């Protein structure tokens, strides 16, 4: 039995995982990153449009600060976010941008003077100040009051991932590529590492660590059509679930991005609309202002995706052999802008559609894009129930996104969470409580269990094949656990997914080829994916309200009275057909921003009984604080400084303060 020891095992080599590894390494701890693919190929690279941070340098972002970013994030989450975490995040985001700038990310910069831009389909002239010249600029994204999304053309994730990938190398951190964690090793509520399979040799190795961090991204691939990379199968989240101890949060909160191309499902960035692109229907009519006169194409993602679907349901979509779609028109931005600032989009259109988006409209429709749900952690990034297990990035439910995340906030979360969580991991590793007091007998048990499972798939005579079961799961998820949901459909979805899970216990593979054996890989991942699908479907069925991306046609109102909570799923019995589902209350009395109107459609939600009281209390508190001191006002309402690692507590410098 091969055993490798390290201080911090990081599972996942995307932005969140790499930033975590760099953080603990710089604190003097040994770390190993495991990645399914070469780290720079991680799905983080596909983030196009940008990263939110309230620098406020560009004139359209002037006056921006952490308060505005916080408010946008909480409203975007439909009040599902943990507001203290949202505060920690918005406070550290500018630091993350600046750290990455120091590491070489070529953020686009403010150029002083006049420039043309397109806002609400009209050409306008924007004047940038001399004092901001050369500082990091930002573009507009949906659901934000200010232009706050910092970018490098539309290859932001790529530039960030390569800078961090190179920092990982500079710090001498080993990244073991083509390694897949199959199970977490744990005992009595403490995680000790993972059983890991090589995707080159097929061999198993046990990795033992003081702290294990899961940063494996989302679970978009349980859906038939997703913008996610093909490796985003949620298996990192699933191995946490399979401990029976770790909790998952809000698994039904799944975001659909308004503009993925049809039929390939590849993303075109929100930057297309942020820069002035518009949505058109079969008649060429720009329809979003009809539904959302104020925010139009730049309403929150969940809202735009629903409006688009609603519009297509009225028969106003464009018919195609691949189903209905709508048009994204960025030709209004002009050739120069499209080919320079939206060049990945240009490439995608050219290669996959054979069109030039500077001239032609792009066929798009809402497509699965982001998993708000994930491993439930505290504000330090540690699992709420399994000690020594940490999670960050999309794999985690930290929880700054609640039921809908804003564009540009996820790529920001990866690095911000990596910065913060790595400090808490390092603190944990410095404590003797993290010592690895585990018997090799237990490790052997875990390794042998996994090996037996693999052997059973190859030679156990199972009759089911992974392909058809997986296909059916993907269809159920997109058809019945999608943008619009009903109790009846969700009932059927849960029943059928249970049936598929039962069938998956009788899987067999045809090929016994030595090495990675891709058929075997598909087979052992499938039950894990089905369990996540069941968590999402069951959570959606039981949540009889609409919040953020979770929309129930039979319960269209947000219901703060009964549902201001986080769904928590666990899977305590390995042989069970369904997870356990419980709820974690989100207390209004602690909120800096009590639930209110999000600003879309009509004001239509059921109030929480404590809201009025909290509103009154806030008013009273604010009477005692200097109205011009925003930091004091914030601290009086919901202090969060003490939750941050000390090194990230200083305030962010802004332009006006330096003049």
């Amino acid at each position, binding site marked *: 039995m091969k055993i490798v020891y390290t201080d911090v095992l990081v599972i996942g080599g995307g932005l969140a995982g790499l930033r975590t590894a760099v953080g603990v390494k710089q604190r003097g701890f040994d770390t190993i990153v495991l990645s399914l693919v070469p780290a720079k190929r991680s799905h983080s690279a596909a983030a196009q449009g940008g990263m939110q941070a309230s620098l406020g340098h560009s004139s359209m972002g002037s006056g921006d600060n952490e308060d505005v970013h916080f408010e946008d994030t909480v409203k975007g989450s439909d009040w599902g976010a943990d507001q203290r975490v949202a505060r920690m995040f918005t406070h550290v985001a500018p630091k993350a941008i600046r750290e990455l700038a120091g590491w070489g990310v070529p953020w*686009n910069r403010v150029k002083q003077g006049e420039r043309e831009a397109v806002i609400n389909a009209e050409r306008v002239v924007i004047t940038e100040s001399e004092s901001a010249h050369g*500082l990091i600029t930002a573009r507009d994204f949906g659901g934000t009051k200010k232009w706050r999304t910092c970018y490098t053309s539309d*290859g932001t994730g790529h530039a960030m991932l390569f800078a961090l990938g190179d920092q990982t190398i500079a710090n001498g951190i080993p*990244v073991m590529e083509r390694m897949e964690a199959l199970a977490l090793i744990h005992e009595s509520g403490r995680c000790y590492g993972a059983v890991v399979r090589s995707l*080159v040799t097929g061999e198993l190795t046990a990795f033992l660590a003081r702290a294990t961090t899961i940063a494996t991204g989302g679970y978009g691939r349980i859906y038939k059509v997703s913008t996610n*990379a093909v490796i985003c199968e949620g298996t990192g989240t699933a191995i946490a679930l399979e401990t029976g101890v770790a909790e998952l949060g809000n698994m039904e909160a799944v975001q659909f991005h308004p503009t993925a191309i049809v039929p390939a499902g590849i993303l075109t960035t929100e930057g297309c609309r942020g820069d002035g692109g518009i949505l058109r229907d079969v008649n060429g009519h720009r329809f979003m202002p009809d539904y959302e006169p104020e925010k139009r194409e730049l309403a929150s993602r969940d809202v735009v995706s629903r409006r688009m679907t609603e519009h297509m349901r009225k028969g106003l979509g464009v018919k195609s052999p691949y189903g209905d779609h709508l048009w994204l028109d960025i030709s209004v931005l002009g050739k120069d802008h499209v080919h320079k600032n939206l060049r990945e989009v240009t490439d995608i259109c050219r290669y996959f559609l054979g069109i030039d988006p500077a001239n032609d409209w792009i066929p798009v429709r809402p497509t699965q894009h982001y998993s708000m749900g994930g491993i439930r952690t505290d504000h330090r990034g540690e699992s709420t129930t399994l000690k020594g297990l940490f999670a960050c990035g999309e794999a985690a439910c930290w929880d700054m996104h609640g039921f809908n995340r804003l564009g540009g906030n996820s790529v920001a979360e990866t690095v911000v969470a990596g910065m913060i969580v790595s400090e808490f991991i390092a603190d944990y590793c410095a404590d003797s409580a993290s010592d690895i007091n585990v018997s090799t007998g237990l490790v052997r048990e875990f390794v042998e269990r996994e090996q037996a499972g693999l052997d059973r798939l190859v030679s156990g005579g199972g009759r089911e094949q992974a392909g058809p079961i997986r296909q059916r799961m993907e269809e159920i998820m997109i058809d019945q656990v999608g943008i619009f949901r009903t109790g009846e459909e969700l009932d059927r979805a849960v029943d059928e997914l249970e049936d598929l899970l039962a069938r998956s216990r009788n899987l067999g593979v045809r090929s016994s080829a030595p090495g990675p054996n891709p058929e075997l890989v598909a087979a052992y991942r499938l039950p894990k994916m089905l369990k996540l699908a069941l968590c999402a479907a069951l959570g959606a069925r039981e949540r009889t309200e609409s919040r953020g991306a979770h929309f129930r046609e039979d319960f269209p109102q947000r219901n703060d009275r009964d549902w201001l909570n986080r769904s928590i799923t666990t899977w305590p019995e390995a042989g069970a057909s369904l997870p356990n589902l419980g709820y974690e209350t989100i207390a209004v009395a602690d909120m800096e921003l009590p639930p209110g109107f999000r600003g879309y459609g009509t004001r239509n939600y059921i109030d929480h009984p404590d809201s009025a009281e909290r509103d009154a209390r806030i008013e009273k508190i604010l009477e005692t604080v200097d109205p011009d001191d925003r930091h004091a006002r914030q601290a009086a309402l919901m202090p969060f400084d003490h939750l941050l690692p000390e090194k990230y507590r200083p305030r962010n410098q*802004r332009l006006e303060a330096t003049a």
Partner: protein
Amino acid sequence: MKTETRAPGRALTIKVLRHNPADPDSQPQWASFELEEYEGMTLFIALNEIRDRFAPDLQYDFVCRAGICGSCGMVVNGRPGLACRTLTSTLPAEITLAPLPLFKLIGDLSVDTGEWMRGMSERLETWVHEQTTPDIHALEERMEPELAEEIYELDRCIECGCCIAACGTARMREDFVGAVGLNKIARFRLDPRDQRTDADFYQVIGDDNGVFGCMSLLGCHDVCPKDLPLQTQIAFIRRKMVTVS
């Protein structure tokens, strides 16, 4: 809204150079698969179909399937390129697929570019070398907007390995850093945050495994999926290195 396609339903013959080094009985050989083409079919879709229907153990690498991540470099009808964004309609009915040469073969169409790229990065130290750690609480260093764009232009490399597979020198010199390495030096040289001098860069690329090994055949430039300006960058770097040598 038509992609560039010939008549749908063309019968495709896809020949894959197969070998599984993990299997002692495996010999490299061509395997042939017949598929019916349909509109919008890419090599990503075609290979998945082959794996589903005919060859469950077929190895290949796709991640983003959108031409962004660089995982799926392979030799398509004799030319290195990204398989995921290659529409079958742009190819003749007979398609040959082989793994990228020069990289360690994992199996079939899957090669180990990761190890190669990491080795190159360690040798060339492809990261910003700064004397001081910037204060992340304070305003960032200013940069001219045009310079940021120029750096990004060279930063777009996705380390897919196509330039190495198309390189004559790499075939003769195992340690040649290739266009991918030289482009990175050009990128960091341009970046004022990197305080290395040309003399420092000369230390890592001033020999035949670096910029003086390039024979200017420029297969790299022809096949780069990101259309990086490799020809001008290599020539420029060579001139600079000559002046410090």
